[in-house]
Every structure is written in C-alpha cells, then in structure tokens.
C-alpha cells in the first residue's frame, strides 16, 4: 500500500476540515480578516491532496511539486494579510512584494532548481535542493509561525482565561513545525513518527475550534 497516498490524503483532508471550521468562525465569533488564515490552510490542504494524487502517478510527480510550492506561497501571501492587517499600506506593499517574490521563486524552480522527487518504499521523497529547502523553511519561520501567533492572540483576545493565549500559540506553532517535519523527512520510521505528531496536533487544532465556538459570543 502506498504510504504517501494515505498520509498526504489524511493530512490534506484534516487540514481542509480545520480550515473549514475556522472559516465558519471568522466573521461570526472571530474577526473577518482571519478568513485569510483559513484560506492559507485551504491552500496547504490542497497541496497535500495534490501530492497524494501525485504519489500514485509518477508522471505527475515533478509538476505536483511545483504546484504544491505555488500553493504554499499562495498560503503565505494570505498569511501576510493576517500579519499586517493593522496597517493597510504595509499590508498592500507586503502582498505585492510577496506576489513578485513568489513569481521569481516559481520561475527559478522551473528553470534552475527543477524538482527531482521520487517514490521509495511507498514514501514520497521531495529531494529538495538545499537552497530551495532553506527558502521554504525561512518562509515557514518568518511568515507562517508569526502569522499563527498573531491568529492565536486574536482568537483568545476576548477569552479572559489565564493561559489560553499561551495554549493557542503553542498549538498553532507546533502544528506548523509538525507539517514542516512531515514534508521534510525521508525515511519510513521518520515519516510515520512525524505523522503521529501531526495527528496529535490535528486533534488539538480541531478541539481548539470547538472551544472557540463554545466560549466566544456570536457577533450581533
């Protein structure tokens, strides 16, 4: 059985459920601009589902990595909306820069750093070049993690219970790290262990949405 297909499908579907439940909360119990946060996770979910499909079709593998990278960058641009929501000018500027840099990144990926993924023992190995891996990790560190922390603060802003912001920040941050590890690892034991980690994160993420739904009052 193709482990990559199962893993990416399960992760993709759960990310989509998480994004969907969060989207339904934004505007009702959470600020509207946090819809961008759920769009980012929709993008990530779609990338995972595309990689799941590609793991069954070797001919599509190479293109799937470029499409997945593009969706990751799209998600990052959505998160710039979350990061710089308070200042409209900075937000527009950062999104414009983000789009330009994303196009350059994809152009480099197609022409100079072409993806070389392969399937080994049912595991999809991205085999990413070091420079590309460093860029992607920097995107996670400087956009995804801070945006997750901003979202955690906004989510818990109206919950006056000590430790909630800390708990939400932790869940959002560690889920991002777990997703990076899941994409990065190359051996079967590592992929399985990181998948377990991601699974625990999903349980916490989905329950965190349930808690928001119960604790926060609906906006009139």
């Amino acid at each position, binding site marked *: 059985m193709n482990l990559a297909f199962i893993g990416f499908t399960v992760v993709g579907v759960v990310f989509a459920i998480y994004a969907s439940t969060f989207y339904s909360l934004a505007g009702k119990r959470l600020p509207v601009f946090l819809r961008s946060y759920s769009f980012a996770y929709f993008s990530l979910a779609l990338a995972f589902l595309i990689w799941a499909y590609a793991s069954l079709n070797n001919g599509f593998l190479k293109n799937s990595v470029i499409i997945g990278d593009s969706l990751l960058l799209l998600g990052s641009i959505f998160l710039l909306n979350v990061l710089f929501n308070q200042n409209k000018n900075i937000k527009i500027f950062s999104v414009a820069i983000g789009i330009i840099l994303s196009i350059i990144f994809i152009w480099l990926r197609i022409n100079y750093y072409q993806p070389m993924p392969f399937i*080994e023992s049912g595991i999809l*190995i991205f085999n990413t070049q070091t420079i590309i891996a460093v860029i992607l990790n920097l995107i996670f560190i400087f956009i995804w993690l801070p945006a997750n922390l901003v979202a955690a603060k906004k989510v818990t802003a*109206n919950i*006056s*219970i*000590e*430790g*909630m912001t*800390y*708990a939400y920040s*932790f*869940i959002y941050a*560690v889920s991002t*790290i*777990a997703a990076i*590890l899941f994409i990065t*690892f*190359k*051996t*079967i*034991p*590592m992929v399985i*262990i*990181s998948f*377990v*980690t991601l699974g*625990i*994160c999903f*349980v*916490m993420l989905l*329950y*965190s949405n349930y*808690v928001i739904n*119960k*604790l*926060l*009052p609906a906006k009139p």
Partner: protein
Amino acid sequence: MNEEIYQNNQNPQVQNIPPVAPIPQSSIKPSYKANNWIALAYVVIIAITWFDSDPVLSGILFWVALAMGLIAAGSFINRINKANKNTQNKLVKVFFALVGVGGGVVIFIIAFIAGLVGWFSAHPIRGD
C-alpha cells in the same frame, strides 16, 4: 476591559466562570521557563541537522535532544497544569488537559525525531 466583561456576560458559557483572581507571579514564571526549554530543544535540533555528517557529535546530540525534549515537555505540561488549576470551566479544563498531554508528547517526539535523525546519520542503519 469593560467591553470584554460585557461580551463575556452575554455568553452563558462564560457566565459560569467565577471572577478571575490576579495571577500570582509563580504561575507566570513557568511559561518563560517552558519557552526557554522548548527554544533550547529546537536549537539542539538545528545543531543536529547541521552536524549530521559527524558521527560522534550527532550521536552525543541524540542524547542531548532526548534530554531536552523531556525537560521541555515536562516544563510545558507544568505550565499548562498551572493554568488548568486557575480555571473552573470544565470545557477549558478538558482543553488544557488535551493540550498539556498532547503538547508534551509532541514536544518530546519532535526532539526525539531530531535525535533519531542524528542517530541514523551516525550509523549504518540509516534507511535512505
């Protein structure tokens, strides 16, 4: 602040929560301790991936990562546990319990995984 109280008063779930007492300093400190340990654990993880070509160093870092993972997880659980004691809301208590146990396991596993990366890179049993 008044707006926050007003909003909470409109929510029946929140109405059951007794007034929050001022947070004692002893319950704030562990959050910084937990963050420090988690940060240290990730520094070790980065060190392992950096030195993964050195068999001796990565082997040592494997044990350091395990120890860091244990301490970080313990410190995190302690922090969440203190927050849990300060609330009476059952929903929040379950949430904190889930985050405490789940988060502790995740922190430990991530450090453990990093340790394994170092271990596999140092030994011929490496799978790839």
